[in-house]
């Protein structure tokens, strides 16, 4: 069954709830290597994005995701605003005018979003950033969809890959963002951006699993 507009809204809401639940955890990860604001900033941004989605219902998934991106850019601040904002804006552009999504639409849009993050942040894999969770997730999603998996199964794989990538940031020396100032002292800490990006993937697979079950 294709993904509907309401499922996409449910994904953003599920991620907003996950951020709410993990706000203190994200801030704690950030205070070890950064400036202790990731949880608070993400919560403020996604609360506003959910509010905007509720105020302006529709059926254009692309437009809705673009709107989410714009809201995040203006509400999050820090590096997270432009990065998560660009992610949703690029996903929205890739899905412009669509009201239903098949598995390959998801894969294309997710790839566009992650490419946007990479262009804006100028980071590569293994520099201890969001991309350490996002790039493996895109790879896994594309491979699974290409091999004919259902979107639900592919998202489970993508979430596992994101979780692996998030954990793999622990031994890394951070090379981008504020944590890079610590050099070797950043080793031993899980990257807060990779952690929120894992939660983003997990929210997508949770929402689709629930949809299938219902």
């Amino acid at each position, binding site marked *: 069954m294709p993904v509907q507009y309401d499922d996409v809204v449910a994904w953003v809401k599920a991620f907003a709830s996950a951020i709410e639940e993990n706000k203190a955890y994200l*801030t704690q990860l950030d*205070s070890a290597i*950064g*400036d*202790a*604001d990731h949880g*608070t*900033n993400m919560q403020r941004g996604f609360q506003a994005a959910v509010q905007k989605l509720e105020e302006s219902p529709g059926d254009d998934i692309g437009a809705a995701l673009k709107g989410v991106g714009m809201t995040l*850019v*203006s*509400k*999050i*601040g*820090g*590096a*997270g*605003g*432009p*990065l998560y904002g660009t992610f949703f804006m690029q996903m929205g552009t890739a899905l412009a005018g669509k009201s239903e999504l098949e598995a390959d639409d998801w894969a294309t849009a997710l790839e566009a979003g992650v490419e946007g993050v990479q262009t*804006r*942040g100028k980071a590569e894999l293994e520099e201890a950033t969001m991309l350490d969770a996002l790039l493996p997730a895109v790879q896994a999603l594309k491979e699974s969809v290409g091999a004919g998996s259902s979107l639900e199964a592919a998202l489970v794989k993508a979430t596992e890959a994101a979780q692996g990538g998030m954990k793999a940031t622990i031994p890394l*020396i951070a*090379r*981008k*963002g*504020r944590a*890079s*100032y*610590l*050099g070797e*002292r950043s080793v031993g800490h899980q990257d807060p951006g990779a952690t929120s990006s894992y939660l983003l993937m997990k929210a997508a697979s949770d929402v689709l699993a629930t949809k299938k079950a219902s």
Partner: protein
Amino acid sequence: MKKLINNPEDVVPDALQGMQAAHGDVLRVMIDPHYLCRADAPVQGKVALVSGGGSGHEPMHGGFVGPGMLDAACPGEVFTSPTPDQMLEATKAVDGGAGVLHIVKNYTGDVLNFEMAADLAREENIEVEAVVIDDDVAVQDSLYTAGRRGVGATVLAEKVCGGAAEEKRSLKEVADLCRKVNGNGRSMGMALTSCIVPAAGAPTFDLGEDEMEIGIGIHGEPGRERISLAPAREVVERLAGPIVEDLSLQQGDNVLAFVNSMGGTPLIELYIVFNELKKLLSGRGVNIARNLIGPYITSLEMAGCSITLLKLDDELTRLWDAPVSTPGLTWGA
């Protein structure tokens, strides 16, 4: 957490309204999106200077809005970069037809948000140049970090460029001057205590009673090394030594020496630091031609200081001396 606030979420708007109440004759405070601009903005035919960054560094940047310095400042949440919509509105409000210079401290969030804002402003046909300040010698500038942080030299760049803009110099000339200040200015800071971000409610890091952090940034982010407390003389050597080396200061050079409080360190200690700095530089034949001593780029209530040295020539000295009239810095006006 003991702070004179009403509510952690309202710290920034409450303080901005306080600035409007206190300084409404020289500046205008706009809420949502938040920015401050000169009361007489836009000044026709003058290059406009816009800066911004997280709050918690007061008087930077809002306190430097006024004739001879910034045309507008965009305050983010405490220690969080402002957003492109704020920067765009501020840029539009102060553009007097001669272009707008964005002065950006080198922090990933600030740089990314100002890049997006400049893209948006150019779409509205406003000429924008951006200069990124990265003067902190505590951070190794390499391919493997986000680069040196922007700290104390930002205050000096805002003053010098403000002076040049008042002389109706072109956008390119003002931007070049900003790069010149950045190229000739270097800083390093240290902390005796941590600070508490109001929304977090707990100290950003722990520092023992007998410890200090050398190479601290202005957000309470840990620095380069943690060592035992030492006399001011030794602290000054650790901070100024790398600066003198990085600037390759020679006998006979003139510098502006800026001794800054991180917020919690009183003036009496800053003068002790300045005296040690003067002795250190005199020993190398370097002359302190100008000085600035006090809390100008702070980190909430953190105790500690930073030292910035700017190598001066006639042009920089003249523009430093030019009249300025802002809540945070005033002379000659």
